[in-house]
């Protein structure tokens, strides 16, 4: 009986843990004068569970009539990334990818993911907003490869052990 209670407890814990991994990406609208350069921070907020991040990707959609994309810059989270780049693949859409090849960055609180620099084409008096789509990799809550917690490209017993360690709160520092 005791055995079943332990299993049941862990069973419930795993479901809870899976549901509690969460965060949001936040981008504030911009205003400004024609010709000005503006830096837009892409923030990772409402983090309710520590996250290990070594690969990111998203597409930022902006109003191409008001803004001209210039570049993507490293920020708090991506300062140690080995590769970070943004490309305007279509007018008004910048795809951003970042990768860190050694240990992932562990985040436990709100931080800035990247900064994206634009120049303003025409005066913007009504705040111009952005939207984000195509969340990839560690930003994708619906990643088809769920369970690959050590990001070795395989789902193995090690990943299960990591989950159990997370639940038990005994995960060693990386």
């Amino acid at each position, binding site marked *: 009986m005791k055995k079943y209670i332990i299993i049941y407890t*862990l069973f419930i814990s795993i479901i809870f843990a899976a549901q509690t991994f969460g965060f949001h990406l936040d981008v504030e609208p911009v205003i400004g004068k024609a010709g000005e350069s503006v830096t837009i921070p892409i923030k990772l907020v409402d983090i309710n569970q520590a996250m290990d991040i070594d690969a990111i990707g998203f597409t930022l959609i902006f109003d191409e009539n008001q803004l001209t994309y210039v570049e993507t810059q490293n920020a708090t989270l991506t300062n140690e990334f080995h590769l970070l780049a943004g*490309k305007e693949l279509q007018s008004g859409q910048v795809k951003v*990818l970042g*990768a860190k090849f050694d240990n992932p960055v562990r985040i436990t609180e709100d931080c800035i993911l990247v900064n994206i620099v634009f120049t303003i084409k025409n005066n913007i008096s009504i705040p111009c907003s952005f939207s984000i789509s195509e969340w990839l990799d560690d930003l994708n809550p619906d990643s088809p490869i769920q*369970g*690959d917690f050590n990001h070795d490209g395989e*789902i193995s017993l090690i990943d299960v052990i990591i*989950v159990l360690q997370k639940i038990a709160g005994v995960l060693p520092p990386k």
Partner: protein
Amino acid sequence: MKRNLMLFCLICIASVFFNITEVSGKEQMTAVVITSSAGWTSGAHSIVTGKPVNGHRSVQNKLLPTISDLGISNHGPYFYRIERFQSDNISKFHISNPANVIWNVPALSSDEPDLQSQSSNPFTMIIASNEKAYLIRYGARTVWIVNPSVSYADRHQFKIGQLDLSAYADENGQNDYDDTDGYPEMCGGKVVNGKLFIVMQRLVDWCPKESVHSYVAVFDIHTDTEIDTHKGEGSLKGIKLPSPVYDAGFPESSSIHYLKDNNTLYVSGPASMGFCTSGVGGKGGIVSIDPKTYVTTIVLDASTDTWEYGSIFSTAIVSPFKGYFVSVPDANDIGGSKNSVHSFNPTTGEILETISSLGGKDIWSMALDRQKKLWMCNSSDSEIVILDTSDNAIEERVAIDPLPKVVSFVYTYDFEAGDVNKNGIISAQDAVDAYKLALKNEWTNEQLWGADFNGDGEITAQDAIDIFWAGFK
């Protein structure tokens, strides 16, 4: 016991709720077989499925009939059919549409001098990466460096450079080791650990000569410069193959092997056969080559008085402890009625077993697939014989029309190269996963397909970087 049971239960629960499932890339193998009519008047290619259904593989025969003197190379989902002597061209196919030519390119330049019988006689293409391969040209003194991925529109840019092997065929003949007929008879090779090993038969007027040994030239594939192995004679930088391995690399489709298990190259040669009655090299042999030190070791010596078999013809190396060779006692016995097939130990040279079911058959060549099944081209019965090398049992005989000569394997997966985690998207995570595989320096064939983005046969940091940038496409 209780603890183990509990752990098992926990893993099962975790598996269900975290979608922990075995992600399989569903490797699919297809064999491409070069065929020839009995009188060598025409040829074609056949396609054989790798996996049997209800015990049988399916076959498509007589695809795109052409001349009989053909070679075959493959890379990724593509294969290249090479028309050789005095046809001198290469056609590219995708395995999913094996009768449709993607492009056809010449294997000689219109103004190219110094070709044997005005033919470059392209034998095989050795792939170094997606954008680089080496075209081995039997009738020329230069290897062409080519781009096998060139598009149809850019096919005139197929040739991107060349390697000079003229030192191995010095017409002036100042030394007794000079191949004075002017052609080194390059016939095949392998890329191993960033080096290209090119086997040259170095025949003199089509026959082996005692003082003119077969050689292996070694080139750095990053700089395309020849490496001095200090194993050659005089100014020759390559590796001199020891007697009795004359006529090395014949037939080229199954006489040059690389075994990753022990990081060793194996080259076999039948020495004097057919009309070359001088008897140089006895009945040939097999030599191993250390690709790092270039030291050669004779594995099988068929020149000794105690050798009970015929000339060593086609060979296959399964492991450090198991290989196969075809014994040809009489090269004038066209039907191969005296031939036999034997297994041997490549480490000790011990002959292990005679495969009785293949006695008296004309086995032109053989090739080992990833499942360690040996596919043997049995021209006597116009069939491919698939041998399980674990017990030498015949798994299946596949009828081929016309006669099978050479078999090559194309492996494909149901996910795109670069999609290392097989989630259908190439992204930064794939780059990170590729980098970790490169660091680990260990991978499965499936992982290699996913992460070897530049197609050079290994996973490196460069693949990770390339995959990262591919995420923007």
